[in-house]
C-alpha cells in the first residue's frame, strides 16, 4: 500500500489583476503560498510517502524570483519527495522556468525534495512508477498521454508490483479549466482521452487543470486547486481540496478528500424590481458576510432598475461592500428609472420653470436605448443631485 497526496493547479504568482487594491491583491497572492503550509501540515497528519503535483505549480512559465523562492521554501517544508509535471501555465520547453538558473539554484537550496518530470518517460522510485505526461508548450494540440498507449507490455513487467501512477494535465471530455478574469479564451488544446489508455495497466491517474475536485473514473481524479482562485462556475465545481490517495498494484484505489481552502468565493444574482430591493440586497449581503472583512470575494450579477434616490443608495451600498470584501465583481446593469414621485418633483417645479423644462427634455431622452439615452440618464442623476444641493 502506497499513500500519497494528489494536488494540482497551485498557480503560484497569480496576479489577480482585476483586484486593484494592492493589499487585497497581496492578500490573495499570499494565500496561495499559505495553502502549501496547510498541505505540509497534511503531510504530517496523513504521512504520505510523496506528493504529486499534476501541473501548474506556477501561474506562468516566467514566474519571478520572489515567487520561485516562496514556492521552493514551501515545498521544502513538506519534507517528502514532491513530483511535479509542467502544466499549460508553467509548461516546459525552451526558456521554461524549470531550466532557468535561478530556479535551479533555489530548488537545490530550498527544495531538494522537488523533482520536476519534464520527459515523457517512466519514472521509477522505491515505492512507485510514475508515468508523467508533461506539457512542453502552453497549447499542446497532441494528447500528452499518447505515449502511454504505445508502451509495450514487456516493458512494464520490469516494474514488478509497484503501483503505476499517471500524471497528466489537460481537459478530459468537457472538463478543463474554465476561463477566468486573468485569462483569455482558449480551447481545443491540451485534450486528454482517457478512454484510449490501455485498460488495467495504470493504478491511478492524477489529473490537473480543472480547478474543482472531480472524480472522472474510479481511478482518475482531478484534485482541483487547493485554494480557490476564481468564482465558482457550475454545480460540479468543488475547489479547495487535496486528495489523499492510497494505492496498491492491481487493486482499487482509495481516495480521500481534504479541504485546504480558506478564502470564501460567493456568487449572487439579484434583480431590482422596486426601490426597496436595495435594502433587501443589503440584508442578503449582511447574512452572507456578517461583519467579516477581507476574507470574501463576491460576484454580483444585477438586473432591473432603480429610481434616482434608490440608485444612489445602491451605489453607496456597493461602495461599502467593495471596501469590506477582497473583491466585488459586478456584472449586469441597474438602469436609472425615476419614480413617478421623482418625475413629478422634477417636472412640476413651478418655482424653477427652466429646470423643470430641462428635466422634461431629459426624461424623454432617457426613455430610449443606446448611448444617448445612457448619457441622458447620467445627466438626470446629475440634475437631481444639483437640485438637491442647491
Amino acid at each position, binding site marked *: 500500500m502506497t499513500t500519497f497526496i494528489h494536488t494540482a493547479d497551485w498557480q503560484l*504568482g*497569480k*496576479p489577480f*489583476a*482585476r483586484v*486593484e487594491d494592492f493589499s487585497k491583491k497581496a492578500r490573495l497572492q499570499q494565500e496561495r503560498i499559505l495553502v502549501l503550509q496547510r498541505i505540509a501540515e497534511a503531510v504530517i497528519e496523513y504521512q504520505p510517502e510523496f506528493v504529486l503535483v499534476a501541473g501548474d505549480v506556477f*501561474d*506562468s*512559465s*516566467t*514566474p*519571478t*524570483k*520572489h*515567487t*520561485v523562492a516562496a514556492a521552493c521554501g514551501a515545498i521544502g517544508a513538506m519534507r517528502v519527495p514532491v513530483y511535479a509535471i509542467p502544466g499549460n501555465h508553467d509548461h516546459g*520547453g*525552451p*526558456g521554461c*522556468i524549470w531550466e*532557468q*538558473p*535561478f*530556479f535551479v539554484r533555489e530548488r537545490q537550496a530550498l527544495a531538494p525534495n522537488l523533482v520536476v518530470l519534464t520527459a515523457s518517460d517512466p519514472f521509477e522510485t522505491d515505492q512507485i512508477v510514475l508515468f508523467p505526461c508533461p506539457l512542453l*508548450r502552453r497549447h499542446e494540440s497532441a494528447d500528452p498521454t499518447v505515449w502511454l498507449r504505445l508502451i509495450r507490455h514487456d516493458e512494464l513487467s520490469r516494474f514488478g508490483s509497484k503501483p503505476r501512477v499517471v500524471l497528466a494535465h489537460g481537459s478530459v471530455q468537457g472538463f478543463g479549466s474554465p476561463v477566468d*478574469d*486573468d485569462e483569455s479564451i482558449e480551447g481545443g488544446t491540451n485534450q486528454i482521452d482517457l478512454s484510449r489508455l490501455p485498460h488495467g495497466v495504470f493504478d491511478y491517474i492524477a489529473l490537473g487543470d480543472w480547478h474543482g475536485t472531480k472524480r472522472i473514473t474510479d481511478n482518475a481524479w482531478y484534485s482541483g486547486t487547493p485554494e480557490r482562485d476564481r468564482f465558482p462556475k457550475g454545480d460540479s465545481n468543488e475547489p479547495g481540496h487535496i486528495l489523499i490517495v492510497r494505492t496498491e498494484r492491481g487493486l482499487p484505489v482509495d481516495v480521500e478528500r481534504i479541504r485546504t481552502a480558506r478564502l470564501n468565493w460567493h456568487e449572487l444574482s439579484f434583480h431590482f424590481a422596486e426601490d426597496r430591493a436595495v435594502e433587501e440586497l443589503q440584508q442578503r449581503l449582511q447574512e452572507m458576510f456578517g461583519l467579516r472583512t477581507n476574507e470574501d470575494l463576491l460576484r454580483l450579477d444585477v438586473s432591473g432598475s432603480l429610481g434616482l434616490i434608490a440608485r444612489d443608495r445602491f451605489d453607496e451600498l456597493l461602495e461599502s461592500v467593495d471596501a469590506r470584501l477582497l473583491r466585488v465583481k459586478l456584472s449586469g446593469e441597474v438602469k436609472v428609472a425615476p419614480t413617478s414621485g421623482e418625475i413629478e418633483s422634477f417636472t412640476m417645479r413651478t*418655482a*424653477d*420653470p*427652466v*429646470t423643470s*423644462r*430641462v428635466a422634461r*427634455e*431629459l426624461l424623454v*431622452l432617457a426613455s430610449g436605448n443606446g448611448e444617448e439615452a*445612457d*448619457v*441622458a440618464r*447620467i*445627466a438626470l*442623476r*446629475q*440634475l437631481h443631485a*444639483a*437640485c438637491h444641493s*442647491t
Partner: protein
Amino acid sequence: MRLNSITVRNYRIHRDRTVQLDPSLTLIGGPNEAGKSTLVEAAHRALFLKAKGTGEAYKAMTSRIADGHPEVEVEFSAGGQTYRIFKKFSGNNGVARLSVNNVPKFQGEEAEAELASILGIEAVSGGRGAGDRAALQWAHLWVWQGQSGDNPAAHATAQQELLLSRLQYGSGAVVLQSDRDAQIAQRFSDLDSENFTARKVAKRGSNLAEAERILKEIEAARTQVAERCTSLEQAIKDFQAADSAHRDSTTALNSLKPQLAVARSELRKAEELSRQAESLHDACKRAKRELDEFVKDHTTINDLRESLFALQDKLSPLTLQKAELERAAIDAEHEYGKTDKAHDESVSETAKQRLTEELARAVVDRFNTEEEMTLCQRRRNDIKDIRDRIERLEHDKSQLPELSKAKIERFRETEQRRTAAEAALGAMATGVELVCTDQRVVLAGCDLNQGEVRVLSEPTEILIGTAVRLMLRPGGGENLANAREELRALENDLMTELGSLGLATVTDAERQFADLEKLTRDLKADRKSLNSLDPDSVETRFEKLNKQYGQLTGQITRLASLVESFIMPVGQDDAEDLWRKCQRELDAADTKVEITKGLKDLARTTWQTASTSFSNLQSRMRDKEEQAEKDRIRLQQLEATHGDHTARTTTIAIRKESLEREEQSHRDVLGKIASLDPGGLKDLETRLERSVAGNDLSVKSAEISREVARHKLTNDGSVDPYVELKLADSRLENARDRFRSADRAARAVSLLNALFQQEQKSLAEQFTQPFVRKIGDYLRRMFGHSIDVRLQFEKSEFAGLELVRKNSQTGAIEFDTLSAGAREQLAAAVRLAMAEILAEGHDGCLPVIFDDAFAYSDPERVQSLQGMLDLAASRGLQVIVLTCNPTDYAALGAKQILLIGSGGTESQRARNAPPET
C-alpha cells in the same frame, strides 16, 4: 412722472433762474458755458441727492458768482399730484422740503424718503463718491454729456428687474427663470467649461482629459509589455525552429558525406582513363597525318609526270605559228611606210592649191568693191544737190515779213470791224435836200441850193433866211461822233500794224502770207528727201569701201608673191572664172589627201595587229616552257626522296595498317570512360559538395540562432512578463472604464448645459421681443425699414445689441463696432424704448434728458432724429434736449428755451412759436 419747472439759485454759474418745461418736448439751447448742463444737473441733484451732506459733489454746486448756499427747486407731476421739491445744499444743515399740490407736507429726511418713494429709488447720501453714485440714478433716462455713445445694454441690465417685470407683464409670458434655475444653469455651464474648451476638446486638467491621458499612458505601457511577451514567444519559436533545423541538417550531413567520398573516387578513375585516351588520340592523329602526307606526295609525283607530257604536246605546234606571225609583222611594217609617204605628198599639193584659190578670191572681191564705190559716189552727189536747194529756199523765206496765221486772222477781223464802223457812220449820216425855198438856206456856212443834197455826219447849223436857224444833229447826239472816233481808231491800229511789217493793205498781207506758206511746204519736202537718203550712213559706207579696197590690194600683192605662174585677170568676169577654176582644183586636192590618209591608217592597224599577235604568242610560250622546267626539277627531287612507284606503294600499305591498330586502342579506352559517366559524376560531386556546404552552414546558423534564442529566453526572475501583461490588460480595462465613465459624465454635463441654455434662450426671447420691437419703432423713424435691431437676454443680462441691415451681405453689426454717430442714435432708440416700457410704472410718462447727445450726428441725421424724439413724445414721454445748435432742431416743434446769461436772462417760447432772442 413729468418735470414741470426747475429753479436754481446760487448754483455754480446760475444766480437765480427758473425754467418752465414743456410736458412733451423742450429744447434748451445756448452757447457753451451758458449753463444748460448745469441746469439739468441741478434738477438731477435735487431729485436724487440728499440735501444734507458734504463732499466733492456738494462743493461742486457752490456758486462762483454769489454768496449763499446752492438752492434747487423742481416741480413735477406724478400720480395725479403736483409735487415741488426744494433743496438747499448747505452741508450738514441742508434743507429739503416737499410740497404736494402747493401744500408743504414733508421736511428733511421725511421729504427725502417720500421723494425717493415717489421716484422708486433710494436717495443717495453725501460722502465720498456721492456725485458718481447720484449720477447712476436714472442714468438710463438721463443722458449725460459725453455718454450718449455708451452701450445702453448695460443700463438695460441695471434696470433689468423693473424692465423684466414690465416686459413680462406686457408680453403675457408668465414664465421667467428663478434664481435657482439660474444657479443650476450656471453650475452646469461652469462644469461644462471646466471639462471642455470652446472647441469642445477636453480641457487640460479636467477629469476627462486626465482619464484620457492615463488611458493613453496605460495603452502605451501595455504595448511595451505585450511586445516583451511576443518577443519571448518568438524566441521560443525561433529556438524550436533552430533546433529542428539543426537536427535535420545533421541527419542530412550523415548521409551526404559517404556519398561524396564514393563519387570522388570514381571521378579520379575516369580522369586517369581520360589522360590515356588523350595520348592515344594524339598518336593516331600523328600517324594519320604522316600517311596522308606520303599519299599526297605519291599523287603529286604521278600528276607531275602526266602534266609534263601534256605540256610538251602543246608547245610543238606553237613554234610553227610563231615564225608565221613574225613574217607577217615585218610585211605590214613595209606597207605602212609606203602609204605614209603618199599621204605627205598629197598634203603638200593641197597647200599650194589653197594659196592660189585665196588669191583668185581676193581679186574677185576687189572688183566687187570697186563697183560698189561707184554707186556710193552717185548718191553722195544727189545729197549735195538737195542741200543746195534747201539753202536757197531758206534765204527766200527770210526775205518775207514775219506773218502767222493768227496775225492774218486779226488783220482780217480789224478790217471787218473797220468796214462795219464805216457802214455805221454812213447809216447815221443825214441827207439834206433843199426841195424848194424862197429864202436863202445856208448849211454849215455854205449856202444850200434848191435840189441840192448834202449828207451831214456832224451837227450842222442851217440858216434859213435870216430868222430861222436850225441845228441838225445826225444820229441824235454824240453817237455819230463816237462812231467816227471808233472808225478812226481802227483805221489807225490797222495802219500801225501793217506799217510795222512793211505792208500797205490787208490784201498785201494775205498775199505775202500765201508765199510764205508755200516756201515752208517746199522746205519740208526737201528736208524729208534728204533724210530718206541718210547722208551719214552713205558717207560711212563710202569710207569703209575705200578702206576695204586698200586692204584687198595689199592681200593680192602678198599672195601673188607666193604663187608661181599666176596670170592676173583683167576684168571682173575673168577674175570670177579663174576663182571658180581654183576652187575646183582645191576640192580635188583635198579628196586625194583623204584617200591617202585612209590607206595609211589601214596599213598601221594591220602592222600593229600582226606585231601584237606575235608578242602574245611569244610570251605564252615562254610561260609554258618555264613551267615545264620547274615541274621537271620537282619531279626529280620527289623521286629522289620517295623512291620509285613500287617502293612508294609498299610504304603506304604498311603505314595504313599501323594506323588502324592505334585507332582501335583509342576506341577501347573511350568505351571504358563512357561507362563511368564522368559528367554525371562531376555533377553529382558538385551537388553533394553544395549540399554538404549548405547543411554545414545550416548547422552553424541553427546553433547561433539557438544560442541567441536561449539567451533571450534566459530570465533573471526580476519580472514575470506574462503576469505583467495580465496586469497591464487589467489596468487598461480599468482605464477604459474610467475614461468611458468620465466621458459620459462630461457629455451629460454638456447635455445639461445645452438644454439649460436652450430653455433660457427660448424664455428670454419671449419677453425681449416687445422691447426689441419698440427699439425698432424708434429706429424706423430714423432709418426707415432697412434696419432691424437685435438684443439678447442671456445669463441674466442684456447683451448682443446689434444692428442688422436688411438685404445686406455684411450681416449683423455689433454695437461697439458701429460709428460714433450710429452708436448714439441706436443708444437713444434703446433708451427711449426702455423709458417707454418703464413709464408704465410712472403714469405712462418719464422724462428723458439728452444733454448734447447727438454731437456726432450730421445735421441731416439730426433731422431724422427729430422724428424719433417726436414719436417718444407722442407715446407720452417727456423729452428734454440740450444743444448748442437749437436751429438744427427747428423741425422738432419743441418748446425752446435759450440760455444766454447766467442769471435769469433766458428767453422762452412756447412749442411751435418762433424763438425769441
